[in-house]
């Protein structure tokens, strides 16, 4: 099957006064139509920057996007002119951001903001767009939608704003929805509502979803495939089951060990990852995780590991020692078992 999107060797850099920040360092992967992909990593790992690079929403300069290709819908997005990439944004690839308050315009009604994209991309007139906006608000479960159309964003609660953002993103029936930490600012019961909503809409509309998050718990439930990112690299990628149960990269293991689990009896010590992520200006020569890794050896300092297949098809990991590593060995190595 022809993939929906294929990214090859994407590098995103920012040229600053202090030096060049290497935010994304040569990542490659493909997404199938209708796939749910989880992109997981901590702050500064390049997960959001890579998504913004796909839509070319990086300011150039100081930014620089360099890739062999970002193939989407039969063409290379990097080769499109400004007018053509604008037609992709919102219509073919839509994005929902972390903070709904700062991504909605406070001086326009919610109804108007949803209609805007419809009038622009679908050539609807005002009346048609308003009717469609109403349908969309109903679709995302906003009560009394007709009344809510004429509300301003400040009259919405956090969860409702995020629903409105999703309605806006879905307005042009995109083939890919990029959700960049859409629930981080929300309470846990509201987060559960939003996750349920996106999963339901994904199944009903058959669109692909890229869910970006720092929480391995959230994507466990919905993602088919998961990319784990660290310092601008994909360090492990596989089916959800492989990432959680046949984990191979020491960083992924550490992330899983750092999470307390509500479903398990408390009492075990958390496995913490010592130290901090590397400075993205002047990355280390070898493995980016070297300084924090419990399994490091001389080779890891000198040579940077590349993604290689680990065990099953499609499960790839960038670590020289993946064959020796599992949760038990990590627990022993960091002494988390006491």
């Amino acid at each position, binding site marked *: 099957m022809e993939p929906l999107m294929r990214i090859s060797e994407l590098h995103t850099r920012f040229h600053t006064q202090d030096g060049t920040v290497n935010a994304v360092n040569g990542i490659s992967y493909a997404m199938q139509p209708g796939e749910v992909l989880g992109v997981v990593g901590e702050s500064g790992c390049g997960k959001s920057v890579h998504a913004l690079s796909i839509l070319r929403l990086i300011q150039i300069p100081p930014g620089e996007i360099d890739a062999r290709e970002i193939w989407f819908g039969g063409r290379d997005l990097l080769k499109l002119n400004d007018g053509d990439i604008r037609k992709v944004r919102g219509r073919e690839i839509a994005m929902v951001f972390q903070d709904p308050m700062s991504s909605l315009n406070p001086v326009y009604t919610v109804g108007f903001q949803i209609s805007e994209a419809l009038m622009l991309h679908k050539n609807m007139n005002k009346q048609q767009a308003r009717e469609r906006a109403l349908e969309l608000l109903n679709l995302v479960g906003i009560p009394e939608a007709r009344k809510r159309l004429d509300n301003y964003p400040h009259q919405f609660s956090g969860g409702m704003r995020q629903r409105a953002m999703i309605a806006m993103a879905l307005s042009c029936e995109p083939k890919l929805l990029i959700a960049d930490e859409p629930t981080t600012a929300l309470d846990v019961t509201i987060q559960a509502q939003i996750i349920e909503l996106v999963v339901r809409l994904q199944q009903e509309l058959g669109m692909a979803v890229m869910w970006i998050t720092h929480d391995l718990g*959230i994507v466990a439930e919905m993602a088919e495939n998961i990319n784990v990112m660290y310092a601008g690299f994909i360090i492990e990628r596989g089916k959800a089951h492989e990432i959680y149960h046949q984990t191979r990269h020491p960083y992924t293991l550490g992330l899983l060990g750092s999470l307390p689990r509500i479903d398990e009896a408390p009492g075990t010590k958390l496995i913490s990852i010592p130290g901090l992520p590397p400075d993205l200006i002047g990355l280390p020569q070898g493995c980016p995780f070297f300084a924090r890794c419990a399994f490091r050896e001389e080779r890891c300092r000198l040579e940077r590991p590349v993604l290689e297949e680990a065990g099953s098809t499609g499960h790839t990991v960038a670590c020289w020692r993946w064959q020796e590593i599992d949760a038990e060995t990590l627990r022993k190595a960091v002494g988390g078992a006491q």
Partner: protein
Amino acid sequence: MNAEQNKLLQVQNLKKYFPVSRQLFSSQRRYVKAVDDVSFDVLEGETLGLVGETGCGKTTVARTILQLYRPTSGQVLFDGVDLASLQENDLRKMRSRMQMIFQDPYASLNPRMTVGAIIAAPLDVHTQLNQKEKRERVQELLKLVGLNPDFVNRYPHEFSGGQRQRIGIARALALNPDLVICDEPISSLDVSIQAQVVNLLEELQNRLGLTYIFVAHDLSMVRHISDRMVVMYLGKVMELADRNEIYLHPLHPYTRALMSAVPIPDPDKARNRKRIILKGDIPSPLNPPQGCNFNTRCPIAAERCFQEDPEYREISPNHWVACHFA
């Protein structure tokens, strides 16, 4: 819970109402009932988790305990002394025994002070130590929280979020307190750093015999670190029990929904469990519903819940709940 443990802190019918500016043409003064009749005990050496969503009053409870807000009514007995009735001078003496770690390690450290001065500030106020003794104590504290003692002359901006939180912890421990209130100490940190800080807090508790009140919205982390948990909603306690009891036998529908909303990092379990998805949003604390606070979102609410406020009662030993149907 061990019946022989001493009660270090007793919170009894604590209320904190904040007045809201009067509306035009209205003679009525309105109040936000941020904390509305909350009672619980904290035992010596335990960790009590205070959990709830935005606006549930968990931070206000913490601050009112420390008398950073004076309570509207109710008592806070610390070692038998009612803090609410103390005058400023007497209260100041008590403060050295109870300290706080704040949520935002960027806002809670003065950017113009060196780390040494920040950590020594409580020593300046409460002790007669000379410069040399203070410096030694600061270095000892830095070592205790896993930082290099040579960092005393650095400024907060030179540290990462996790390191700053360690500085905040060192400051809280400077006076050898009995009680430390941790107000969302990890929610602004990355996952791998959160585990570092939580492990440090646990280690320090074992080593120094500290008592913690751990305030957070992350239920799985609260369950991990606490001995007992208090679940709050709109200014009231919904349920209080041992961390295993509350997970295995949650009695309040809100606790059940909250538990089921917590993501589980295991695809097989996460996909097979039944989730309770609550409808709607948390009501405004300015205008809480009549009867039970939770009735607007409760899946089992009945007639009675809209009229009568449920009594907060001990339903089995050490398991308290406020629900008509528990």
